[in-house]
């Protein structure tokens, strides 16, 4: 009942008030005294409520109106000039910034100039904010770094006013510097490096700048960079209930939109990576003169930050590729994929600066410019007929993930290799550039390619991110750049997409067949695929241990997924590789064949499996027709399998198709100009073909690439020997024998040719003491030269095996076996192998 009466009373009161207020809001001026007379019993409440209403209305007014004192407030700062705060004499105002006024002051105690910043008055009443502010100041104080503007002290006065005593940094801001005149590359990089070092030092202490921009970076007259306002710009939004604690006044602009990270723009939580983004913006601006997302209005700028890629074409031509990559990584819209540690940028820039210092920059730049303007123009489509995929950088920082980056590189090479009209440098060629800092045009020249693909790989859990860029090599111009992110399961689709995009970019013809094969990808089992990549990583080391470990991983991959064609294909290639050398396991080819057939059963478009099968048929099965078919199929599926092409070339030679063989081997060299085996093998073929000068020429080429290439020395010496230049021949073969026991036999034969029989027999004795299948074919050659035919045939019989010596079918070719050609046993041997005489 009491409640009812109270409600009733409240209703009457509210109704009365509503009438009064209604008159008021309609613009009448109701008289309160007259009004309360109608409700004497409620007078007190009515008066109180009307007073409350007045107060509320005044509060609303204060929100939408300004008054005199607002404007007075705004200039009170000037009053500090000439005054003294503690031991600091205010000299003049040097700026109004995000935190209030900044003054130049004289420290009367320490006789130095300082900068004094007044602390927002709004902090005065808020103890939490003040605490936070103090903590930030303490953090800043702990950042003792030559590139960070230091804090000397905080002065807090009773009436709530507070002052930051900061290091006074003379000089111009980076914003002024950029506006004044364009920065040279080295200058921009040097400034960038110092900024990165400063920010890195702060991040280490957990301090995030959050408002990094050219306006708060100063360059002292002696060229030192100082980053100001660290940790002061904005405290992170707290998780507590108020949620609105901030170390700054709302009335000041914090993140300047041009340098805001996408997460800042979206109002998402930010961390140290927001600084890395801003850093990227600054570097970009230093290099191009304008910020990457610059536009007429802030709205557009914000939209661009979220939606658009910066225009990478506007970066100066001479911008080194690694700097472009770093920039791209800093400006990755997704902080998860962004450069994670700004220290990495500092290091990269430092290395680039060293490189630039090491070579005369001006002529280099002039050269680029010349080539850029000299009629070549922009990298035009259609100009690119060859390219190299440089080893994709492993961005995880974890050496354990090296295999993954290498695997992705190889897979991308394989995919691009499927495009017939494009020459793609092999894994062997490009791996030489792993972790090598060289200007891209130089690398491209060495690899003899028109374009270079470089990029990076990150794998986080099941997610793979690949960033790649295509660079027109002679001009060092960017043609295309993009990032892809996918689940590890879909990695093959991703790679095929990258390959096809590159093909489109350079407008190279992709036949419908190639297109179909590129498009035909399948999901992979992540665990199997990782094991496969690890397997290939170790196999590619081309060492006995690497082969063993590699085969082990591939077997694991197959255990995990017995239906994975890639793993079987890798296994087949691994066994074939191990079957070639001396000390080959006797059943290596047999295992290789089983794996290759299994792989083809699962996927008959697997070029590698056809390639493995071709070698097995050529070297073990002596199934000539089958070998040719397999070679052709493998090379049709992937024309850039250079090693396979080399083997095919030897196949052609076996059947007297010498010109074709030499042409194919020439192509191997073209595709892989830096692989010394190319010219060595070409020389070998010339030697067999009786073209000794060409053989010497090619052998020398291989030795230029690798002076310790035993097979190169073998070919060189053998060609010299044929020309009667025994001294040179012996010298080359001695070195070959020292480098590798496998080529020791060469010296024996050369001694024999030179008439130094005793020395030849010494070599023979040594070889025969512990001969392997590999040696048999070579020992036979020495006996042939020594004209001991029985011994020669005995050793050829041993070479016949089983297991077969892989080179036995070619006995018609080496000049060494010429003395045996007339012997009937020779024809029988050829007949048994079913090779033409």
């Amino acid at each position, binding site marked *: 009942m009491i409640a009812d009466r109270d409600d009733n009373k409240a209703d009457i009161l509210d109704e009365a008030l509503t009438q009064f*207020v209604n008159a008021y809001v309609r613009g009448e001026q109701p008289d309160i005294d007259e009004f309360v007379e109608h409700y004497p019993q409620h007078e007190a409440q009515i008066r109180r409520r009307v007073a409350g209403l007045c107060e509320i209305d005044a509060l609303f007014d204060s*929100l939408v109106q*300004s008054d005199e004192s607002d404007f007075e407030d705004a200039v009170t700062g000037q009053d500090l000039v000439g005054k003294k705060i503690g031991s600091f004499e205010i000299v003049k105002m040097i700026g109004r910034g995000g935190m209030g006024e900044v003054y130049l002051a004289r420290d009367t105690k320490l006789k130095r100039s300082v900068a004094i910043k007044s602390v927002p008055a709004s902090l005065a009443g808020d103890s939490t904010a003040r605490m936070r502010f103090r903590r930030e100041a303490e953090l800043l104080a702990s950042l003792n770094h030559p590139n960070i503007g230091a804090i000397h002290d905080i002065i807090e006065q009773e009436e709530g006013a507070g002052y930051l005593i900061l290091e006074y940094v003379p000089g111009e801001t980076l914003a002024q510097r950029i506006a004044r005149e364009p920065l040279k590359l080295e200058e921009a990089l040097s400034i960038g490096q110092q900024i990165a070092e400063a920010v890195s030092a702060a991040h280490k202490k957990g301090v995030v700048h959050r408002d990094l921009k050219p306006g708060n970076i100063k360059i002292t007259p002696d060229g030192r960079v100082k980053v100001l306002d660290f940790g002061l710009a904005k405290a992170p939004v707290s998780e507590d209930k108020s949620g609105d604690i901030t170390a700054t006044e709302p009335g000041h602009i914090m993140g300047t939109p041009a340098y805001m990270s996408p997460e800042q723009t979206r109002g998402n939580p930010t961390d140290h990576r927001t600084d890395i983004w801003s850093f990227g913006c600054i570097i970009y601006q230093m290099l191009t003169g304008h910020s990457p997302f610059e536009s007429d209005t802030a709205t557009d700028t914000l939209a661009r930050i979220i939606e658009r890629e910066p225009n990478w074409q506007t970066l100066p031509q001479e911008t080194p590729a690694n700097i472009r990559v770093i920039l791209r990584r800093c400006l990755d819209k997704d902080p998860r994929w962004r450069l994670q540690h700004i220290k990495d940028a500092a290091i990269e820039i430092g290395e680039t600066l060293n490189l630039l210092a090491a070579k005369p920059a001006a002529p280099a730049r002039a050269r680029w410019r010349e080539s850029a303007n000299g009629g070549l123009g922009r990298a035009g489509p259609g100009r690119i007929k060859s390219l190299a995929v440089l080893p994709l950088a492993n961005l995880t920082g974890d050496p354990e993930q090296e295999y993954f980056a290498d695997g992705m590189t190889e897979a991308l090479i394989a995919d691009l290799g499927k495009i017939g009209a494009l020459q793609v440098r092999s894994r062997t060629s490009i791996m030489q550039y792993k972790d090598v800092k060289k200007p891209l045009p130089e690398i491209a020249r060495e690899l003899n390619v028109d374009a270079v693909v470089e990029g990076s790989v990150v794998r986080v859990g099941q997610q793979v991110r690949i960033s790649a860029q295509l660079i027109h090599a002679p001009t060092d111009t960017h043609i295309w750049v993009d990032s892809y992110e996918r689940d590890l399961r879909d990695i093959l689709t991703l790679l095929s997409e990258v390959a096809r995009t590159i093909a489109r970019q350079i407008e190279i013809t992709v036949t419908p067949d190639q297109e179909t094969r590129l498009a035909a990808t399948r999901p992979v089992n992540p665990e199997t695929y990782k094991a496969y990549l690890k397997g290939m990583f170790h196999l590619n080391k081309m060492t006995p241990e690497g082969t063993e470990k590699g085969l082990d991983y591939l077997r694991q991959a197959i255990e995990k997924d017995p239906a994975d064609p890639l793993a079987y294909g890798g296994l087949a290639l691994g066994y074939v590789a191990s079957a070639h050398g001396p000390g080959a396991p006797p059943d290596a080819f047999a295992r290789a064949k089983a794996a290759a057939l299994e792989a083809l059963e699962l996927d008959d478009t697997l070029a590698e499996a056809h390639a493995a099968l071709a070698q097995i048929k050529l070297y073990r099965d002596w199934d000539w027709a089958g070998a040719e078919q397999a070679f052709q199929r493998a090379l049709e599926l992937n024309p850039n399998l250079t090693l396979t092409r080399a083997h095919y070339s030897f196949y052609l030679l076996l059947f007297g198709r010498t010109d074709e063989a030499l042409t194919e081997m020439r192509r191997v060299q073209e595709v892989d100009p830096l692989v010394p085996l190319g010219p060595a093998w070409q020389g070998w073929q010339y030697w067999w073909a009786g073209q000794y000068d060409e053989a010497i020429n090619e052998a020398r080429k291989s030795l230029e690439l690798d002076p310790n290439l035993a097979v190169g020395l073998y070919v060189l010496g053998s060609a010299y020997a044929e020309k009667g230049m025994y001294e040179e021949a012996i010298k080359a073969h001695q070195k070959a024998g020292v480098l590798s026991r496998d080529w020791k036999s060469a010296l024996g034969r050369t001694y024999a040719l030179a008439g130094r029989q005793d020395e030849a027999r010494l070599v023979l004795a040594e070889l025969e003491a512990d001969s392997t299948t590999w040696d048999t074919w070579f020992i036979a050659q020495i006996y042939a030269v020594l004209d001991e035919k029985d011994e020669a045939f005995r050793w050829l019989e041993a070479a016949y095996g089983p297991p077969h010596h892989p080179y036995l079918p070619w006995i018609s070719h080496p000049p060494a076996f010429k003395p045996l050609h007339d012997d009937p046993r020779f024809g029988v041997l050829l007949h048994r192998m079913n090779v033409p005489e």
Partner: protein
Amino acid sequence: MNSVNDHKTQHLVTLAKEGDQSAIDQLCRIYGERVRRIIRLRIDRKLRPKIDSVDVVQDALVLALAGLKNFTYRNEGDFLRWLSRIAENKLHDVLDKFYADKRDIRREIPFKKERMNTDGGSFGVAGPLQTTTPSVLLSRKEQLDRLEKAIDNLKLEYREVIFLSRIERLSHDEIAAKLGKSKGAVAMLLSRALVALTAAYENA
């Protein structure tokens, strides 16, 4: 509303348009906290801790300054109105993002998502019951906090009409057009809303 101060604002806007940093700073100082308070009133109390009104205002200021050259000062209060609109739009964006995956808790006042209109128009009726100067009141944090709490307890209809009238300063005719009510109904609705607000303010 005093036109002298508005004239000063107008002068600062002119200077700011020419790129005068000190004028820009002054404008931000004068209007930043006001806009922030307005924005806070706009946000439901449950969301206030989650949305950083300072951020919203700063973003709005950034946007405003960038778009300053498109702003024309025609009438009294244009600058603040313009600024508030930008802040509101910004708040919309923030809320949209915030609600993108939390649709069910959307409870803020459904203010119109219209883009800025720099034509302005008059502020409508000015409150005659001013007790002290705006800047002094503005510094009374506790009162504003109470006002926030009081508004939180109003029903949506009341909150909306108060905003239209007291913050956006629309005339009763304009509000009537917006809400599809008669002018008299608007006056009555506003009266009830203000009475409810004062009651809530008393208890807040």
